[in-house]
């Protein structure tokens, strides 16, 4: 077990190092260097020279690479071209945005997993019946939906139509709530993006759960449990469902990259101030340091999450040994 973890950890470290290197070379290819950007500014030539000197663009690439690596490992992601919520350093900007994204994604993910598992179990049990076909087609339709468009439809129904939820931001403008009221306001703003994110993801979980459960329901121990006289619900949720967890956890880990892609769209649409909206803003302002930082952080986060999932396997299923 320890050996397996160490082996995976080594692989993770190498991958992260490659990502950092890849990031360095990718962003050197970006159009528009610092000198052309400075031409527009009204600063004096001396100041411009000093900025160029500090940015280090006139040094050979390997020296730039070395100093880039050094700053990466000390947690310095550079300075943004624009300032965001009063922050200018990329690491600070990203750090201030992470909580919003994490809260949104974790809640949506939990919703999607629970709902997806439930739908999968029901579909497997009612296999071939109208309920199965209906739920399966709905899952497939949700799966082939652009996330942001689904959100637009939900906004059309619940915000413009029924007026139940606010359509943007994290808090009601012009209010200064404290304590529980602030939390309640936050949750009210989060409901719609979370619901949207969760429903879009339900499809892949439900489909996976259904096909795994169909296999499991043919196993001998299910017949045995039935012979013992357990109720159907007990057999489905206590005997069969736990054994479907392994394929589910694989899908959950694989889905993370898609989930973050969805977060970029939803945060942009709902003006939810998280990492995704930051990335959208940075892209359209061509604010390369911020874009680079966001790309790096999201990639590393996904690699680490996959690593954690991998270790969890060992605990979920003791048969996994390598």
């Amino acid at each position, binding site marked *: 077990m320890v050996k397996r973890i160490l082996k995976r950890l080594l692989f993770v470290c190498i*991958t992260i190092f*490659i*990502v950092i290197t*890849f990031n360095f070379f*990718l962003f050197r*290819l*970006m*159009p*528009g260097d610092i000198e052309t950007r400075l031409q527009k500014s009204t600063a004096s030539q001396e100041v411009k020279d000093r900025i160029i000197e500090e940015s280090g663009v006139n040094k050979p690439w390997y020296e730039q690479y070395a100093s880039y690596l050094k700053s990466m490992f000390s947690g310095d992601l550079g300075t943004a071209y624009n300032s965001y919520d009063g922050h200018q350093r990329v690491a600070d900007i990203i750090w201030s945005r992470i909580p919003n994204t994490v809260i949104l994604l974790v809640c949506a993910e939990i919703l999607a997993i629970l709902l997806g598992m439930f739908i999968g179990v029901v579909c497997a049990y009612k296999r071939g019946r109208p309920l199965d076909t209906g739920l399966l087609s709905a899952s*497939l*339709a949700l*799966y*082939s*939906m*652009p*996330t*942001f*468009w689904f959100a*637009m*439809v939900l*906004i*059309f129904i619940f915000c*413009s139509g029924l007026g139940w939820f606010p359509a943007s931001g994290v808090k009601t403008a012009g209010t200064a709530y404290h304590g529980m009221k602030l939390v309640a306001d936050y949750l009210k703003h989060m409901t719609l993006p979370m619901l949207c994110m969760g429903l879009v993801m339900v499809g892949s979980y439900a489909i996976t759960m259904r096909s795994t459960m169909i296999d499991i329901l043919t196993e001998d121990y299910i017949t045995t449990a039935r012979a013992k006289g357990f109720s159907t619900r007990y057999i489905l949720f206590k005997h069969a469902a736990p054994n479907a967890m392994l394929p589910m956890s694989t899908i959950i880990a694989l889905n*993370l*990259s*898609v989930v*973050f*892609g969805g977060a*970029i*769209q939803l945060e*942009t*649409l709902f003006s939810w101030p998280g990492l995704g909206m930051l*990335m*959208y803003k940075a*892209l*359209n302002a*061509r604010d*390369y340091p911020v*874009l*680079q930082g*966001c*790309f790096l952080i*999201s*990639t590393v986060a*996904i*690699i680490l999450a*996959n690593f954690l999932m991998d270790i969890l396997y060992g605990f979920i299923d003791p048969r996994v040994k390598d």
Partner: protein
Amino acid sequence: MENAKRNSRALRRTLRRRKFGMFVKQVVGNRMALAGVIIIAFFILMAVFGPMIMPFDPTINGETVESKYNSPSWEHLLGTDSLGRDVLANLMSGARVSLFVGISATLITMILGTLIGIVSGYVGGFVDNLLMRVTDFFLVLPWLPFCMVLAALFDKNSIWNIILVIGLTGWSSTARIIRSQTLSVKEQQYVERTISIGAGKWHIMFRHILPNVFPLVFSEAILIISGSILTETSLAFLGLGDPSRPSWGMMLSDASSGAMSVGAWWCYIIPGACVVLVALGFTLMGYAFDEILNPKLKTR
């Protein structure tokens, strides 16, 4: 000699035709496949002939207050958008762009994925190891951020850049699938026989292995088109669309900043539903073709 060659060619053609005939029969017999084919055929017809029969030019905008955000009427069946353009005309020319981007990007993805998969699986050893590590690396990169970063490499968003970005980001899972199929095809006896006759590596890979993995490549490609169209839509929403060629994604993107706040639902509900239908159509077709063409699934 000449005669025998001609005969064998004719025989092969007949066999291929019979195989294709069987394939068509199976598609028609499979309800999922048939539904997918009908949906896609409808949208392809719409993309090809729609713009020809529409009385409105989608690029013309009479930007007057009266022509903006007209709700659906007999004159404008699906209403008009923020610039007074006819939504139905836009929808038809948008179908061309969306389908074109989706199919071209998939072509790049499949060529890259198939090439890497076959070479990796057939050559093996060091080359396999290297190619698979590169593939693994591309698999872990988060999809949309990677697209955004690649797109930022270009100063302007042209349709070609977008095709390139989508094509370059999606090949890794295809390479994995093709590689595993190549590994099993490689073990078959006729490959050994061909080697013993003295055939070269490239000859075997492209004359013998490629035709055998092709059914898989084909059904995989159909599935990937749906993903490519969805990616194009998402990129357009994030501001990465070609403004001179408005796709469905661009229509949705425009609507999200304008039509949504004035309640002009016709500007985005229908274009979005079209994206969903096309993606669903390709997905249904892909899964059904996979069932028909994939020898592994057939035996079950």
